[in-house]
């Protein structure tokens, strides 16, 4: 191995690591606020890429149908709730939010797709559609059992993962897709070619991480989420609705995942079942951060990316083994050094 190969491998590792880092952040966020281990996050990544690839071909794919179906279910849930409480106040805006908005996005997707809009519009539509799935999923699947144990929530997550996986096969087919590159530029840095695409991925991930940091530390909503993550009961006493916190968390989480999907589309071929492995690597990063620390999770994800890249050069047959074996010493080290912060409830 000479220096140029090492540089290329490092570049590849950092690019993938940046994507894993975003996912790790989404996983930490969702777990901290709602105690959900968000297994289906990978499906959101795959849906992101594949919806965009579908729009490229002028197809709205089945995601519009899924959005519409979930919007209707959420609407019915709202109506049932209002009927049970015998309280119609606030029903109209809630219905508009839960049913009207997703239906509008779905409608827009179907209407605009055949017109082959510019790339930016396609990306915006993709982000809107996939992000909207996040809160809907929370509303339908997680919110009714929000007080259940971590294990129950995990089992629901696994079930949703398989459901979304099956739907993905149905919507997008078994074969993979790529999206066109955002840029074909490349730079020479000290004799090593750096592709503009990888640079873009790293910079965008970095920007998104900064925006998230600003959101959590400087904005009211972000601080509300932060407060919920630190102390759920305390936040509730302070007037932060857990339902609202959950919805917002899943919106932000879904947005981050959809964003990952859009970012990796030009670098790699994405399949309906690609997401799980990608999110699992993000999860390794999140575990390194103890599912609580954002900077350590991001650093862990970067480490996963680099390890993956270099092990694919040295021992390609054992690449996954090496990456996932990393979690064992980390778990051992964490269980020895930190006390168990997620108490049994």
């Amino acid at each position, binding site marked *: 191995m000479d220096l140029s190969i090492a540089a290329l491998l490092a570049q590849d590792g950092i690019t993938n690591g940046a994507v894993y880092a975003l996912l790790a952040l989404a996983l930490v966020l969702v777990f901290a606020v709602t105690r959900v281990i968000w297994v289906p996050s990978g499906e959101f990544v795959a849906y992101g890429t594949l919806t965009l690839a579908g729009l490229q071909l002028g197809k709205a794919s089945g995601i519009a149908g899924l959005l519409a179906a979930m919007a209707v279910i959420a609407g019915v849930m709202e109506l049932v709730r209002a009927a049970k409480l015998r309280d119609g106040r606030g029903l109209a805006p809630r219905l508009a939010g839960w049913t009207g908005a997703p239906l509008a996005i779905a409608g827009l997707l179907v209407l605009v797709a055949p017109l082959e809009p510019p790339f930016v519009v396609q990306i915006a539509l993709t982000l809107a559609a996939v992000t909207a799935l996040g809160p809907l999923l929370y509303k339908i699947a997680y919110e009714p059992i929000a007080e259940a144990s971590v294990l129950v929530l995990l089992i629901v997550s696994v079930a949703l993962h398989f459901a979304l996986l099956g739907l993905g096969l149905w919507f997008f087919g078994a074969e*993979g897709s790529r999206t066109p590159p955002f840029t074909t530029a490349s730079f020479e840095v000290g004799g090593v070619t750096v592709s503009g695409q990888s640079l873009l991925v790293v910079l965008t991930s970095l920007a998104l991480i900064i925006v998230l940091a600003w959101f959590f530390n400087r904005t009211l909503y972000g601080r509300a989420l932060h407060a919920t993550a630190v102390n759920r009961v305390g936040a509730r006493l302070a007037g932060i609705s857990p339902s609202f916190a959950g919805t917002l968390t899943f919106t932000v989480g879904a947005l981050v995942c959809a964003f990952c999907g859009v970012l990796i589309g030009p670098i790699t071929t994405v399949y309906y079942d*690609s997401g799980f492995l990608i999110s699992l690597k993000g999860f390794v990063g999140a575990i390194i951060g103890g599912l609580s620390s954002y900077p350590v999770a991001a650093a862990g994800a970067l480490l996963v990316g680099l390890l993956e890249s270099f092990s*694919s050069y040295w021992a390609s047959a054992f690449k996954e083994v090496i990456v996932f074996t990393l979690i064992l010493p980390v778990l051992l080290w964490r269980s020895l050094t930190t006390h168990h912060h997620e108490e049994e409830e």
Partner: protein
Amino acid sequence: MLPRSSLTALAAALAIALIPAARADINVGVTLSATGPAASLGIPEKNTFELLPTTIAGEKINWIVLDDGSDTTKAVQNAKKLIGENKVDVLVGSTITPNSLAMIDVAVDGETPMISMAASSRIVDPASAKTRWIFKTPQSDALMADAIAVSMKANGIKTVGYIGFADAYGDGWLAEIKRSAQTAGIRVIAEEKYNRNDTSVTGQVLKIVAAKPDAVLIGAAGTPGATPQKELVARGYKGKIYQTHGVANPDFLRVVGKDGNGTLLPSGPMLVYEQLPDSNPIKKVAAEYITQYEKRFGTRSTFGGHAYDTFLLLRAAIPEALKAGKPGTKEFRAGLRDALEKANVVATHGVFVMGPLEHNGLDNRARVMVRIENDKWVLAK
């Protein structure tokens, strides 16, 4: 109104009269991988079974199609269910080699002939008491690997690098290409593995490029085959790139785009049937199947062809088997096995000439070299 007892008697008589008629149906039990990792292979196969006629030689055929989700355990369960509950006369499947290998014991125990749609020659070779009941339609990897070695030799290639799936498909191809290359005097100087879902193969490709082989063979199926190819092009690799027949579907062309230009691969002749000479008998059979398929499901897939070939074999063998016994009986199944072993059938992928030691029966007529040119498959000279 008739008294109740005579109604019952009438019903019983009707039932007795109907039983032999129902028994006369020929039941074909199919298990294939329409979901899971092999879905891109299994879906066109599933589509093909929807196109098939429901009578052969005047007998009604029931195609009972089950999905095994590319899962070995599920494939065995399906095979047991088809033989035990549906009393099938012949088992077809599965899509992939591990599933097919696992189903062999079930078929042999049930004394039911089985036609696999998976590639590995291990399914039918070597001939033994077990493989007596087993047949398969796709070309063996060995046949295709030889075609690649011949083409490499003709192109003056001395060294080859290999990158393939880290699974049975990739390992099988690595073994075959090592054997074929050796007979052609070509050395395999780099071996790398990757996974279907890998987001990056930069490491592996860098290592291959550093070894400077004259050509690279990518042992992959479907669109994942495009990942190393695009990376090789991005890393400025200038040698020839070979793919296996596993990538011969339209989605591969869509994903690989212009980076696929000049790539060579072996394939069943049906992929480029329009370009075959009229004297080739395969052309007519392939045209008949592909016209039907493309009318309903869009672009052709060679995997659908393997499914259609099982039908062609059965269509040839069933009239013979009917002489041995009634469908649903042990005699019929044994007769079907014997008839399959004597089959001599022109199909979409080649000409099957079966024999006691030859349960695949394909020869050089079952392969052509194809080159990718501007998103099209072109028959190479």
